[in-house]
């Protein structure tokens, strides 16, 4: 399967199953489009009709181009067949090793954002803080369940994890105390709304956290529409200086300022550029996840605007890079030569299998987005995963389980997408959240175009 598209002056051909990317001129673009359905003579004849008045297009040259296409096909870089479908069934036998936990250290929050998927941090339940004992047992459970995996990831999540900061610090200290003996490497992430960030938090996080995710939506009026405190006051003025200090002091270490865009700011690149102009360089902006009847939900009419926004973003990022002031955008960070292997591309995010969420009281869920939905309770950190039927269901939730993805060119870039989004949209974890698919495909086209521009455009 191939995918062809034109963007920012580039003609791009993706070969889905080999992962190859080709930048071609418009003649080769058309010829590749016809290659599987027409004879060579038909293609040459058609090209002569269309481009025959151009000096650089001759019959001999067109036959040479046909040879080039054929040689790429022979080399497994064009029109490659799917040889992975059979492999997907082996995922039934996938190991039960766990390598990542999302620790819900605080089911409470000091902001009251109406668009919050976690219902203001409470996940449709009671307010709660994770005790050190529960957190420690969760870390032990992770180590015990991780087999030979060395890199273990732990995300301190909420609600707002800084509302349980001492426990976070104590858990980091505990993990560090056992990692050498257990031959593990803990990578911690902290996701925060910034309200309680101070010098002590910054120093600790910059020493211990592999990544920090700072939640901010962009322009003041956009941020303060949703991200308000319990009294209804916007939090922008309070958090921006703290986040700037945090990011500056992280130096070379990873962080993201991560925003959510909604129906109210479909011009979200203005928010990304606002954050960039403030001085943040590692950026992420996500479409809101909410019920379709929510006023902030994105609509079908919004889609063309959003597509345009992603193109604006890609072009502006290329421009800023040329000017020596680059920014990164999470979804555009594609490394074509050192990206994920085919196993990762088929198996996806690992929710419910190698990645689980832990509630403040030690229950296990497939991921943070399922917390609070009792149907998806998987077990607890003392007894382990006891709902093995549910685990098996998630084990098989790979790109080949979604037949709506069968003919989609993006399937090995998204792995079939987010199980939680699919579940919320269709009632099934192997369903498809079509709106998310459209945005994902557009982001991939932009991300690959940027790589093409960097590889080819400079020549």
């Amino acid at each position, binding site marked *: 399967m191939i995918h062809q598209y034109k963007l920012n002056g580039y003609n791009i051909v993706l070969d889905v199953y080999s992962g190859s990317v080709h930048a071609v001129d418009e003649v080769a673009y058309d010829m590749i489009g016809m290659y599987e359905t027409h004879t060579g003579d038909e293609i040459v004849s058609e090209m002569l009709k269309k481009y025959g008045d151009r000096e650089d297009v001759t019959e001999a040259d067109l036959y040479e181009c046909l040879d080039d296409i054929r040689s790429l096909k022979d080399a497994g870089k064009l029109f490659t067949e799917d040889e992975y479908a059979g492999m997907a069934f082996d995922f039934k036998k996938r190991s039960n090793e766990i390598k990542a936990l999302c620790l819900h250290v605080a089911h409470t929050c000091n902001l009251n954002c109406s668009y919050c998927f976690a219902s203001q941090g409470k996940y449709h339940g009671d307010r709660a803080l994770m005790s050190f004992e529960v957190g420690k047992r969760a870390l032990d459970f992770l180590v015990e369940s991780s087999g030979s995996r060395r*890199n273990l990831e732990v995300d301190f999540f909420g609600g707002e994890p800084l509302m349980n900061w001492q426990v976070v610090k104590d858990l980091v200290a505990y993990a560090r105390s056992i990692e050498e003996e257990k031959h593990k490497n803990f990578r911690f992430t902290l996701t925060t709304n910034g309200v309680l960030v101070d010098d002590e938090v910054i120093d600790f996080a910059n020493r211990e956290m592999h990544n920090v995710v700072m939640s901010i939506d962009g322009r003041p009026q956009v941020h303060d529409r949703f991200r308000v405190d319990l009294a209804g006051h916007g939090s922008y003025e309070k958090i921006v200086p703290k986040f700037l200090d945090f990011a500056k002091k992280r130096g070379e270490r990873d962080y993201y300022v991560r925003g959510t865009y909604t129906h109210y700011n479909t011009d979200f690149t203005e928010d990304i550029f606002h954050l960039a102009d403030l001085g943040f360089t590692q950026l992420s902006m996500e479409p809101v996840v909410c019920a379709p009847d929510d006023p902030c939900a994105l609509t079908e009419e919004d889609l063309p605007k959003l597509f345009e926004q992603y193109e604006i973003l890609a072009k502006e990022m290329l421009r800023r890079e040329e000017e020596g002031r680059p920014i990164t955008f999470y979804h555009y960070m*594609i490394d074509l030569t050192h990206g994920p292997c085919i196993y*990762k591309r088929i198996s996806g995010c690992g929710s419910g299998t190698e990645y689980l969420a832990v509630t403040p009281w030690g229950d296990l869920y497939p991921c943070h987005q399922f917390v609070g939905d009792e149907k998806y309770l998987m077990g607890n950190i003392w007894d382990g995963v006891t709902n093995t039927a549910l685990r098996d269901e998630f084990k098989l939730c790979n790109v080949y389980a979604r037949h709506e993805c069968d003919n989609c060119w993006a399937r090995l870039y998204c792995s079939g997408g987010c199980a939680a989004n699919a579940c919320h949209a269709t009632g099934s974890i192997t369903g498809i959240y079509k709106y998310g698919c459209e945005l994902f495909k557009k982001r991939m086209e932009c991300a690959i175009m940027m790589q093409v521009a960097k590889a080819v455009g400079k020549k």
Partner: protein
Amino acid sequence: MKRIETVETRDLKASVKTGGCGECQTSCQSACKTSCGVANQLCEKK
């Protein structure tokens, strides 16, 4: 090739043999937490 330039990419078919160590980052554990893909994850093998 006059009309086609191939950008260097990882050969996915070859990764059937070389991949699968499982040490890479869990996709959703980084920034997004909502709209996960795998394309932007890095391979941990050097």
